[in-house]
């Protein structure tokens, strides 16, 4: 993975000094609350219900074992001994002290990490596919370009204070796992007919209060123009995006208001001045950065491993885990592994300091010392030998990291919600854990099969509820907490937004509502169908009919 040189290191060190001084000025009363806010936000520091919350950048989800050890140490030294991996591949600390943040940043800088632009109205951490570089369906490994874009976006002076936050995702696979259509800018890298690296550019996607999937603004952009083309898009947005109403300030609203044709015209007018400007990427720079992402020193291995096959045959628990948590790899004899941060009954995405150290050790021992964070809030070891899988499983299992529920109903994406977030309408973590307990039967979970359940505590949609096969949204009704349910959302190439099934429910009703949705699916499915397929075939009606059949439930509900 990418390693800092002196230039990168100096910049991050200078950032620590800058932020240390900003914090000092705030604590000394030289900066007002209002003036400090944008400064701390640019640095990932929110002030939340319990305490400040610090979001640490994990650029495009890549971590070294050394970095993860450091995160584990920081979580126990400055927090309550755990951290929360987020849907944007970052790590959040829920209980740091404001005064400690400069020190935390200084510690992070020693392992080439920071919290730059992890929140605030600026270009955020760039995200990508958690299987980048190892996925068999990959056309282009997007990580070198993601790193080049990370550098370009860091303290970009023109875009330091945008109307609203700005998220960029990149991908290079046929099967989009980076949800590029859900981002302010999505870049899909591919090889064109001349075998040259090119980009399909999407713009104006985003969830939140007004969920909109992105639109293609450019089918074929030559890779070297990635930065200047983004500059053209973001300049149009910076100048014309709304600043009067933060709910209407995302680029998606501007693109919708102007229409993609007019928006594109304005972007191209800007780009005609920026094209071939010095920020155009030279071949040599892509080559230089790509060196950091070259293939690992893989061994030549047979496609099969007798020990592995025997373990599968004799150990059903191991076999169940392999079925869900082990993924294809482009090198024979290797696999990628997802370590589940969704054991039943705990907050999705949370990892304790001890677990972080265990995962870091596993990475060192079995996976070239690297790992990734997925936007589904799990951790990935990308390069495990078939013959090592059993050992990895045993160690992961002993540490609560091997719940074989990846891609299943209890692999829930969930925002921090009312327990931690001051914007919440309702709690979300207790709903997730209640559903996990309701479905705490692995055979049954495997029988239900692939399904995505996403929960957000308010319409800001941090938990991506719009694109969950089942989406749950916390709503406020006369000061009490209710939940609105939608079905039929999905991410990936065939992304779609879910439809609300009807009036909302109380927290206690939620496990049984999900149960009823599943019951309809089990009854109606054809042998090939996943939950989402059945919903698409039958529509919302039969699900709705069953969920609301019992009128006593419906009476308790409220129109949301």
């Amino acid at each position, binding site marked *: 993975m990418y390693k800092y040189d002196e*230039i990168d290191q*100096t910049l991050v060190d200078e950032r620590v000094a800058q932020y240390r001084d900003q914090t000092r000025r705030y604590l000394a009363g030289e900066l007002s609350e209002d003036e400090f806010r944008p400064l701390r936000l640019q640095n990932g520091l929110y002030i939340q219900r319990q305490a400040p919350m610090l979001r640490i950048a994990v650029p495009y989800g890549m971590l070294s074992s050394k970095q993860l050890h450091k995160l584990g140490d920081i979580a126990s030294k400055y927090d309550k001994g755990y951290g929360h991996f987020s849907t944007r591949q970052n790590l959040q600390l829920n209980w740091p002290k404001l005064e400690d943040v400069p020190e935390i940043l200084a510690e992070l800088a020693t392992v080439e990490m920071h919290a730059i632009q992890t929140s605030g109205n600026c270009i955020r951490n760039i995200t990508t596919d958690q299987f980048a570089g190892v996925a068999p369906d990959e056309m282009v490994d997007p990580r070198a370009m993601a790193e080049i874009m990370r550098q370009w976006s860091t303290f970009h*002076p023109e875009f*330091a204070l945008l109307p609203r936050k700005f998220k960029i995702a990149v991908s290079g696979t046929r099967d989009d796992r980076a949800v590029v259509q859900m981002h302010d800018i999505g870049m899909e890298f591919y090889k064109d007919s001349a075998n040259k690296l090119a980009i399909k550019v999407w713009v104006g996607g985003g969830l939140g209060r007004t969920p909109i999937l992105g639109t293609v603004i450019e089918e074929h952009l030559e890779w070297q123009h990635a930065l200047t083309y983004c500059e053209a898009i973001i300049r149009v947005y910076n100048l014309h995006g709304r600043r009067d109403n933060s709910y209407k300030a995302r680029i998606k609203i501007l693109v919708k208001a102007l229409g993609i044709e007019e928006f594109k015209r304005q972007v191209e007018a800007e780009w005609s001045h920026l094209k071939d400007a010095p920020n155009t990427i030279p071949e040599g720079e892509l080559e230089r950065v790509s060196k950091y992402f070259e293939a690992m020193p893989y061994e030549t291995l047979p496609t099969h491993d007798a020990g592995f096959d025997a373990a599968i045959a004799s150990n059903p628990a191991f076999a169940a885990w392999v079925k869900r948590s082990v993924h294809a790899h482009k090198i024979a004899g290797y696999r990628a592994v997802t370590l589940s941060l969704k054991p039943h009954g705990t907050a999705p995405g949370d990892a304790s300091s001890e677990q972080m150290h265990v995962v870091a050790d596993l990475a060192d021992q079995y996976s070239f010392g690297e790992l990734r964070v997925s936007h589904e809030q799990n951790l990935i070891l990308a390069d495990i030998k078939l013959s090592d899988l059993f050992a990895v499983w045993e160690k992961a299992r002993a540490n609560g990291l091997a719940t074989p529920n990846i891609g299943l109903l209890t692999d829930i994406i969930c925002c921090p919600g009312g327990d931690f977030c001051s914007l919440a309408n309702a709690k979300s973590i207790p709903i997730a854990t209640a559903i996990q307990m309701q479905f705490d039967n692995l055979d049954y979970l495997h029988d239900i099969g692939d399904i995505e359940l996403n929960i957000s505590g308010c319409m800001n949609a941090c938990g991506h509820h719009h694109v969950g096969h089942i989406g749950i949204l916390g709503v406020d009704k006369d000061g009490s907490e209710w939940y609105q349910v939608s079905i039929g959302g999905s991410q990936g190439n065939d992304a779609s937004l879910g439809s609300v099934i009807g009036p909302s429910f109380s927290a206690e009703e939620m496990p049984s509502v999900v149960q009823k949705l599943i019951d309809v699916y089990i009854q109606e499915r054809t042998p090939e169908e996943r939950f989402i397929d059945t919903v698409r075939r039958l529509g919302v009606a039969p699900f709705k009919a069953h969920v609301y059949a019992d009128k006593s439930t419906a009476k308790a509900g409220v129109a949301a």
Partner: protein
Amino acid sequence: MSNLITLNNGVASISENEWTVVKLPASQVEERKQAGKVVLFRLTGEKTVSAEQIANTEIPSTGKVIVPLSVFIARKAELQDRMTSNEIGVWVDTHEILEDLVASVSDLNSLPIIAVHVERFADGRIFSLGTLLRSRYGFKNELRAIGDVLRDQLYFFKRSGFTSYLIRADRSATEALASLNDFTNPYQGAVDEPRPVFKRYNRIA
């Protein structure tokens, strides 16, 4: 003590402020918000300037003055002589259209100074405006940031082509000076240094 920081050949210092910023008088009529036209989203409360306000703007009869764009456009004839003696500059608000400024003079560089007024710290349009004035419209003279100008914007102002900064009256310009040098080696090309890091250094993997 002056609250003006100027940058001369990369060296920043506190300087005497020779320029007076001319403000528009408060409007008498109830202003309507400029919603509707999608191409020109405006901050809530960003007011249209009325003909009456323009007429009532008091321009000091001597000395160096920076006048609002709307006044400059409407009353250029009466400023003509003073323009020749380099006494007239123009300021624009972040929601105003640079093309209007460019169209109002035959040569932008006949203006000794352009100022951009930023009402709120968080309004980052000012950085795009500075960038465009320098790189698109070739403005070479003094470019000044005025309004809610605080030390933590300075580094970005410098990189976006601003060469002077009128620090908000309740803050110390002397203390703010340090922030111009928060970072030694930026990654991306911008106005002050167009070459990105990969064109300045031979970075070896």
